[in-house]
C-alpha cells in the first residue's frame, strides 16, 4: 500500500500567504475595514443619496435635516452627497495614477536591468525627480498643464515612479544573482526571458506594500493641490476641495469641515495600516 503525502506547505505559495497572514492581524483588518467602508460609500454614492452633488439649493449652510442628513454647504449643496461623490473622485484619481506610476516605474527598472549605461541613465532620472522635494515638481506640472483632473493624475503618477522603480530595481538586482536565475540561464533561456519570466515575478512582491503607501500619498497630493486651488476643477467635489472649502466657515459651521476630515482621515489611516500590515507580513 502506498501512501501519497503532499508537502505540508507548498513553498511557492508561502510569500503570498505571508501577505494574507499580515492582513489578518489587527492592523490589517482595521485597515481593510476603514478602506472598505469609505470605498464602498463612494462606489455606492448614486444609490446612497438622491441629491445631486452639484445642485445648489435655497438653504445655504443649513444644519442636518431630513432632506440633507449632513446639512448643506455655503451655496446650498448637499454635503453628504458631495462627500460621497468626493470619495469617488479621489478613488478614481488614485486608482488611475498609482497603477500608472507603478507600471512606468517598473518598466524603467526593467530597462535599467538591460545594461550598465541604461541603469545609469534610469538612476539619474529617478534622482532628478526626487531632487524636487514634495509637491514642488507637481507645481511645475500644473504651471504647464493648468489645474484639472488629469494634471493631478499625472503629478501623483510622476511622484510615485521613482519609488516603485527603485524598489523593483533593488529586487531585480538581488533576484537575478540567485541560483534559479543562473540555472535558467544555464538552461539556455535568453536574457529577456530570464528577466521577465523568472526574475520579475520574484521581485514584484515589495511593490505591494509600496502600492498601499502610494494610494495614501495620492490622497495627500490631491488634497494639497485642491488647497492651492490647482486641483480638480470645481464644482466637481474631491475630499481635498471639501476640506479646503470648509476653512472659511470653521467657527460657524464646524460640521462642514468635520465630516470630510473624518472621511479623509479614515481613508489614509486605512491605507497606512494596510501598508504596515503587509510590510510586517512580508518580513515575518
Amino acid at each position: 500500500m502506498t501512501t501519497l503525502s503532499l508537502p505540508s506547505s507548498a513553498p511557492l505559495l508561502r510569500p503570498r500567504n505571508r501577505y494574507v497572514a499580515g492582513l489578518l492581524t489587527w492592523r490589517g483588518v482595521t485597515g481593510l475595514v476603514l478602506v472598505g467602508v469609505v470605498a464602498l460609500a463612494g462606489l455606492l454614492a448614486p444609490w446612497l443619496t438622491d441629491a445631486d452633488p452639484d445642485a445648489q439649493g435655497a438653504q445655504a449652510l443649513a444644519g442636518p435635516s431630513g432632506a440633507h442628513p449632513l446639512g448643506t454647504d455655503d451655496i446650498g449643496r448637499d454635503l453628504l452627497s458631495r462627500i460621497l461623490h468626493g470619495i469617488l473622485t479621489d478613488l478614481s484619481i488614485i486608482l488611475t495614477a498609482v497603477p500608472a506610476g507603478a507600471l512606468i516605474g517598473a518598466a524603467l527598472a526593467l530597462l535599467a536591468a538591460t545594461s550598465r549605461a541604461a541603469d545609469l541613465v534610469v538612476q539619474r532620472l529617478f534622482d532628478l525627480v526626487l531632487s524636487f522635494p514634495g509637491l514642488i515638481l507637481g507645481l511645475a506640472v500644473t504651471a504647464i498643464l493648468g489645474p484639472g483632473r488629469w494634471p493631478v493624475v499625472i503629478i501623483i503618477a510622476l511622484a510615485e515612479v521613482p519609488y516603485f522603480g527603485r524598489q523593483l530595481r533593488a529586487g531585480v538586482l538581488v533576484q537575478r544573482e540567485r541560483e534559479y536565475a543562473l540555472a535558467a540561464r544555464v538552461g539556455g533561456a535568453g536574457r529577456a526571458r530570464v528577466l521577465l519570466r523568472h526574475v520579475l515575478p520574484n521581485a514584484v512582491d515589495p511593490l505591494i506594500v509600496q502600492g498601499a503607501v502610494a494610494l495614501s500619498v495620492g490622497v495627500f497630493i490631491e488634497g494639497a493641490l485642491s488647497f492651492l486651488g490647482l486641483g480638480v476643477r470645481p464644482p466637481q467635489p474631491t475630499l481635498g476641495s471639501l476640506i479646503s472649502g470648509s476653512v472659511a466657515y470653521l467657527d460657524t459651521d464646524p460640521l462642514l469641515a468635520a465630516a470630510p476630515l473624518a472621511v479623509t482621515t479614515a481613508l489614509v489611516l486605512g491605507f497606512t495600516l494596510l501598508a504596515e500590515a503587509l510590510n510586517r507580513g512580508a518580513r515575518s
Partner: protein
Amino acid sequence: MRTFLFKRLPSGLAVLVAASFTVFLMLRLIPGDPATTLAGPDASPATVAAIRERLGLDAPLLSQYLHWLGQVLTGDLGPSYAIGGQVSELIGDGLAATFQLTLAALLLVVVLAVPTALYAASGRRRPLAGALRALTTGALAVPPFVTGVLLVLVFAVGLGLLPAGGHASLFDAPDLAVQYLALPALCLALPSAAILARYLQDGLERALGEDYVRNATALGVSRRRILWRHALPNALPSAVTVLGLQIGQLIAGAVVVERIFAWPGLGQLIEQGVSRRDYPVVQDLLLLVVAGYVAVQLLTDLLYSWLDPRVRWE
C-alpha cells in the same frame, strides 16, 4: 573633506544644473507660449510678437537658458510677467516669512522628536511608549492639510487660545508673532518629527543591542550614561541624514501650510505664479527650492562626517 570637495560637491552641482535645465525646458514645452497668454485672446499677432521680443522669448533656447543662469547668478531676476514688480523683490518679500516658518518648524521637529526617541528607547516597558508609537503613526498617516484644519478647529475655534491664521512681524510684536507662528509651525513639523523620532528610536535600539553596550553594562556603567554617551553618539549620524532630507520636505510642505494659515511666504507667491502662469516667478522659485534642498543635503553630509569619525578617515 577631500571626498566631499571632489565627489559630493560636484554631484550636488550636477543635480542643480540638471534640475535648472528641467525646470527651464518644462516651462518652454507649454502649448502656447506666455506671450500669447499675456497678450490675451484678442491680441493681434503683432502685439504677441512685440511681447515675445520684449521678454526675450524669440531668442534660441540655449541662449535663453544661459541668459537666465546669468540672471540667477547675479541675483537680478528681471521683471515678473503677470504679478508685477521685480522677481527678486517678490522673492525677497516672501523669503523672510517662509524662513521663519521653516526654522520654527525645524526647531519643533528636533524638540519633539529627540526626547520622544530617547524616552521610548530608554526602557523596554515604558508606559507611554505604545501611545507615542500610535501618535507617530497618526502624524505620518494624516495629510498636513487635515492636521492643519484640525489644529485650527481645536486651538483657534474650540479653545480660542491661538489665532487661526495671519502673520505679525517678529521684530515689531514678538509675542503676537509667536502666537501666529505656533499653529502653522506645529502643523508643518508633525510629520517630520514623527519620521525623525522613528529613525532615532530605531537607531538607539540598534545601538543598545551592540556588544559595546553589553560591555559597558558589565562594567557597571549606568543605563542613563550608556544611553547618552554610548548609544546616542552612534545613532546620531543617520538621524542627521534623515533630518536633512526632512528639511526639504519642510520647505515643500510650507507651500500648503502657508495657504491654510494665510502665512504670507513663498508658498503664496509660488501659488500665484502657477495660477497666473508667471513663468519667471515659478522658474526662479522652483530653482530656489531645489538649490536649498541640495545645499541642505551637502551640509548634512559635512555634519555626518563630523559626527561619525569613521567617515572622516576614509
